[in-house]
């Protein structure tokens, strides 16, 4: 058996294989449900209802999708340039730290929201800048450095919550002083539990899409990612493009942290992110790195998580099924993409 490249994959192949991957995900989910002793169709139905079946469920899904859109965009932007930013989790937490630093009374009222957002994004970008400069100057693999920084940042948050940022009114819980009201993102519609972070995430996706398809920077990012040698030969300033990409990617991931603190939680805690930074990679890959696709896949992934929580309460199937389903979805999708451009032949 070997792989033979296909020069011009047909439309059926390009559309059919990803569809097949989704179908395979669905079937696997049903098999897992059956394995857990529940009725597969009922489990799927409960996940769907739990994700979008009511106003409350839908809003919960949208809220959960918000940070995933930001981290998904962060991964999508960086991966386009073949810059493997695995550190979105760290950038997210740094964004959250900055939000708490500036949002607990340090700044005057009107300025506080835009300034926290900007400074948080800048901090996240700068956090990714270090690994990128190590990569361009010394050839250090950014996968390793960005991954390790995640752990460093988590320990930093842990320290801050036990020490300098600890909420004196927190009854001993490791959480920060809450944000002042001016630093909080208002809800889009009064009475509905959905904050402006979601709208901003959509806006960010549209902006990234425009950057990638319409601007010189997007052109440069894609050229560097697709063929760095040709890009360099043609005179594209490769290192400069990578630095810009890092600022963009790190900034987006930090906005996820900002939006979670300012929009949802109101304070920093160690459970702020259940791995949004890592899940963002899955979101981006499922979206084939397309910025608008990131919105769709973030909604899908958030729906699976939220729906599985609800299903678990009703059907008694563990919520871990959500993680397995998403992992399988990613594997099937990657496989489908591979088979779009290659075919298996015998001999």
């Amino acid at each position, binding site marked *: 058996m070997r792989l033979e490249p296909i020069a011009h994959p047909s439309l059926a192949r390009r559309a059919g294989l990803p569809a097949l991957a989704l179908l395979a995900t669905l079937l696997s989910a049903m098999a897992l449900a059956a394995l857990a002793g529940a009725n597969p169709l009922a489990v799927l139905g409960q996940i769907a209802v739990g994700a979008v079946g009511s106003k409350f469920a839908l809003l919960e899904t949208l809220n959960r999708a918000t940070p995933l859109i930001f981290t998904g965009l962060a991964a999508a932007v960086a991966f386009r340039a073949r810059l493997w930013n695995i550190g979105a989790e760290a950038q997210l937490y740094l964004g959250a730290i900055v939000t708490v630093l500036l949002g607990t009374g340090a700044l005057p009222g009107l300025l506080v929201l835009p300034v926290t957002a900007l400074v948080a994004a800048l901090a996240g970008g700068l956090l990714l800048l270090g690994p990128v400069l190590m990569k361009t100057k010394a050839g250090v693999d950014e996968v390793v450095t960005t991954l390790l920084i995640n752990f460093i940042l988590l320990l930093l948050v842990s320290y801050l919550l036990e020490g300098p940022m600890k909420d004196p009114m927190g009854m001993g819980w490791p959480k920060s002083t809450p944000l002042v009201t001016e630093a909080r993102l208002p809800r889009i519609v009064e009475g509905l539990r959905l904050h402006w972070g979601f709208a901003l995430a959509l806006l960010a996706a549209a902006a990234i899409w425009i950057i990638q398809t319409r601007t*010189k920077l997007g*052109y440069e990012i894609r050229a560097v990612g697709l*063929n760095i*040698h040709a890009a*360099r030969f043609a005179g594209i300033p490769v290192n400069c493009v990578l630095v810009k990409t890092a600022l963009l990617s790190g900034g987006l991931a930090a906005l996820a942290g900002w939006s979670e603190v300012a929009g949802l939680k109101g304070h920093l805690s160690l459970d702020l992110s259940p791995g949004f930074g890592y899940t963002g990679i899955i979101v981006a890959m499922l979206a084939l790195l397309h910025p608008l696709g990131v919105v769709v896949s973030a909604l899908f992934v958030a729906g699976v998580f939220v729906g599985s929580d609800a299903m678990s309460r009703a059907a008694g199937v563990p919520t871990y099924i959500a993680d397995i389903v998403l992992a399988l979805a990613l594997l099937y999708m990657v496989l489908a993409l591979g088979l779009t451009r290659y075919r298996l032949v015998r*001999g």
Partner: protein
Amino acid sequence: MQAQEVVLRLTGITKRFGPVLANDGIDLALHRGEVVALLGENGAGKTTLMNILFGQYRADAGDTQAFGAALPPGQPRAALMAGIGMVHQHFTQCGALTVLENIMLGRESLWQTRLGRAKARARLAQLMADFGLTVDPDARVGDLSVGERQRVEILKALYGEARVLILDEPTAVLTPQEAEALFVTLRRLVAQGLSVLFISHKLGEVMALADRCVVLRHGRVAGAVRVAETNPAALAAMMVGGDLPGQAVPPGRPGVVLLSLRNVGGTGVDLDLRAGTITGLAGVSGNGQAALADLISGLARPLAGQMTLGGQAVPADWSPRRAVQAGVGRIPEDRHRQGVVGDFTLAENAVLERYGEAGFARGPFLRRGAIRDFAAGLIGKYDVRGGGPETAARGLSGGNMQKVILGRVLEAGPKIILANQPVRGLDVGAIAYVQSQLIAARDQGAAVLLISEDLNEVLDLSDVVHVISKGRLSPGFARGEKTVAELGLWMAGEGFDHAA
């Protein structure tokens, strides 16, 4: 040479790629102890035939036999196992491994652990001594020159105990003297009962080396003759059919010096590129061409000596972008790697060097309509076949890809053109087109630097020829001043010693 056992037989091989019939009912037989040349122009179907033999492609019809047994189609290992060794035109090596590791690669089961490694090293040393092919066994293949990598490829085949050796245009990267040494090697192999199938488009080599010659033209066998019973003219006629031989290039009108190098790299490289002149750089690959090309294309900065453009020293921040802005058009050596972004459309590739110019961008935004129109114009003007502005570049043939690069370079109106291996791997039609465009650019006053391993190409096109060898550059020779043999001596580094 009397007829002996047939070691390799191809019967009725036919292969079609879309509308192109690459091989059409080809029959070929190779006997023990025989050298057969497979002669044909670029694109005549020689390489396709070999890829079928080695299972890279499946033939649409026909079959192959080695030592009397049929080879299963589409299985690359089958031919190797049957004792057929191939030296590819494009090397199949792993750049990160050493020479020894590359040679052992794929034969691991024969060689166990360190003991095997020592044995392999000893055997390789013996082979190198026997056949006069010297390469450092511990050098990383990625660091070797193209010429050295070919030696590795030949050694690899010999090492694999091949009884039939197939060489695909083996002399393309060798000096005439090195080629002669290779011929001696091959004759020694044949005397020991091996058989050689030798693919070439050079008549001289065929006459010098082969016992028999099979000529391919447009995918068919145009003739099969004993070399002793024929002559180069007859072979040429068979090879090109009714086609006329190429016209001699009229000389250029030399103008002012546009680019000048003085002792760059500290090895006495002095070079003047004059307007209206094609300056040819002959030499075996890996003798400093890459460093010189990097310097002129902006990838490297002069470390020593002086580089001036139009009389001005190049800026300290010399870079590819600066080079483009200074009017240096660059045709890179490896068009797939450096020339185009394969997954970009033709439109995107057409402006790869110039997307930031006012015509193609407004503020941070690209003017996509203008870019598409520019690409459409380029595609029409340079006769790019196989796609429109929105087609991905990777789908194009090498010739059409090169036309896109050529168009991109020429449309910028360059004063200096660096053409690094501009026709490598192209078919006859594309070669003629690219060369005629370079000549036209010269006639409009551009200074062209042509770097090529093909001495004939350099001699045909150039007004001035320099030879590069071990980082040193010969003085410029006017057209016709030196014979091929004399230039060959320079390529081997001998002229420098006399001149110094």
